[in-house]
């Protein structure tokens, strides 16, 4: 029975993963990917990892929702009203796929995998908690700092509103004295390449053009500047 479920879920994961690239709608593509992950989460439960398995479903539902929001926002023809090809660079991707498949298969088949079945009724979640508060505490706290950095970066890159007002004019800090030159470093005018509109993944034209005018500022400055670079 477990074998049948494992096979079924694996097949579902593969089928859903394949559908991701065959449907026209961004919404459908994202949620097919979610179904694929849910199947993997189910396999996690089968493998006596009840926490990781269920948490995968939980996280992927949330993440795919957010992905849908951004995909629909920035992709042309998000609902696939005009059918389109989701796959680019066919030859390269076929090659990469074959190589990756061969490599992973080889790794799986050639490795002497340990057989270490988890005893039924072992308190895996409890052990995970002890691990987080014991040896892995540093890793755990580092994850906290990393996630903080993620949050700050996300806000810096995508928020329009800033603490001094809208990003286009307000992200320049006020002068040290009324009417004085803006505090902080002044962006150097250099002909270097620009970041920004690539970095934050926006496909919108107005920002792209602005990028040429404000060139170069992005490197030296606090994130506020990047917003309109």
């Amino acid at each position, binding site marked *: 029975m477990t074998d049948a479920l494992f096979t079924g879920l694996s097949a579902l994961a593969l089928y859903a993963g394949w559908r991701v690239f065959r449907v026209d709608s961004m919404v459908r593509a994202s949620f097919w990917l979610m179904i694929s992950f849910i199947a993997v989460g189910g396999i996690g439960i089968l493998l006596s990892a009840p926490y990781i398995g269920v948490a995968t479903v939980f996280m992927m539902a949330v993440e795919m929702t957010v992905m849908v929001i951004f995909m629909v*926002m920035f992709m*042309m*023809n998000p609902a696939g*009203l*005009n*059918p*389109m090809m989701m796959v680019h660079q066919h030859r390269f991707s076929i090659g990469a796929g074959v190589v990756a498949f061969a490599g992973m298969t080889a790794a799986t088949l050639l490795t002497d995998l340990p057989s270490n079945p988890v005893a039924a009724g072992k308190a895996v979640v409890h052990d995970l908690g002890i691990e987080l508060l014991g040896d892995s505490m540093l890793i755990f706290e580092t994850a906290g700092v990393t996630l903080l950095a993620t949050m700050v970066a996300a806000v810096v890159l995508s928020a*329009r509103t800033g603490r001094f007002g809208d*990003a*286009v004019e307000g992200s320049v800090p006020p002068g040290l004295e009324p009417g004085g030159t803006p505090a902080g470093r002044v962006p150097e005018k250099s002909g270097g390449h620009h970041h920004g509109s690539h970095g934050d993944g*926006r496909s*919108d*034209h*107005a*920002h792209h053009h602005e990028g040429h005018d404000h060139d170069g500022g992005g490197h030296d400055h606090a994130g506020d500047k990047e917003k309109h670079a």
Partner: protein
Amino acid sequence: MAVGGTPVFVAAGGGILGAVEALRLEPALTPVATPRAAQVLLVVGEQRPSDRIALARIHAQLVEPRATVWWRTDRLSGFDLGTRAPESVSDAAAFISAQATQSDAEAILLDDAPPNPWEGIGPHGQGGKGMMGGTPYGRPMAMTSDDLRDGLSLDAYTATFGPYLTQWPPGLIMETTLQGDVIQSARIVEAPLAQDVLAATPHLELARLLRLLELPALAERLVRAALANPSRAATGLARAVRWTGVLSAIPAGLGRDERGGDVRSRMAGRLHALAAGRPAEPAAPGDVAAMLAGLEWHEAALVLASFSIDDLRRAIVSPAVRMAKDAA
């Protein structure tokens, strides 16, 4: 309004809103907000001849078998469907409810054709071309334009809304451009229609706001009080409405009128009027279309409902009147 009555979509015209509120209370009927949920299209009050097409669209959107009933109004010319209900409220309710099961199915008045030809056109037969071109499934796709708020130029969705949106004043037609749920620009095509005296009582004005704040039961209580005696001071009722926290649910500074009042202060004014048993003070909305630009859809609906229909009508010069003025 009973939960289990015959679902009715009310297409309200002019001079009728108070009577409609009385009809909504009939247990035989359940007024619904969309024709997809309705069995009967109830056309009430004075109708503009120009709204015939809009009415035909609503009629087509009804679930089959369609039935149309006219109440306290004459059939529009070119809309020769349906029957007339008796004048009195309770007779009308029974009549309408009976129509839902008795009437033969009515035919749709509009042509059965997509807005643009598409079938079999294009590489996949869906009527489109390329990524964004053509008219896939009969309609073009939205195109990008600039945004008021955050500078991201994403797709703009332009449509005419009204005149039969139940959450708006009856008769109001606006051509609205949205990006997401934020109104980019609004152009008023037709002003709301003038309504009866009962519709201008603070009870009914508050009831319209409360429905938008998802408090329909309390709104019905206000309607019942208004039908019993609109000029009696309803202090307890005003307090009950206040205690739900409606005022703090509305953002401060929303929809500033020419006297500096906002939705919250106008609603508070209505509550005072309700408690004192007098009509609410009139307000001067100024340029309504400009006021709605930049607002989220729900906020915009609240702004519209926070003015009395007379205030809105005074502020909106209907295009026909404007043209007459220009000519003079």
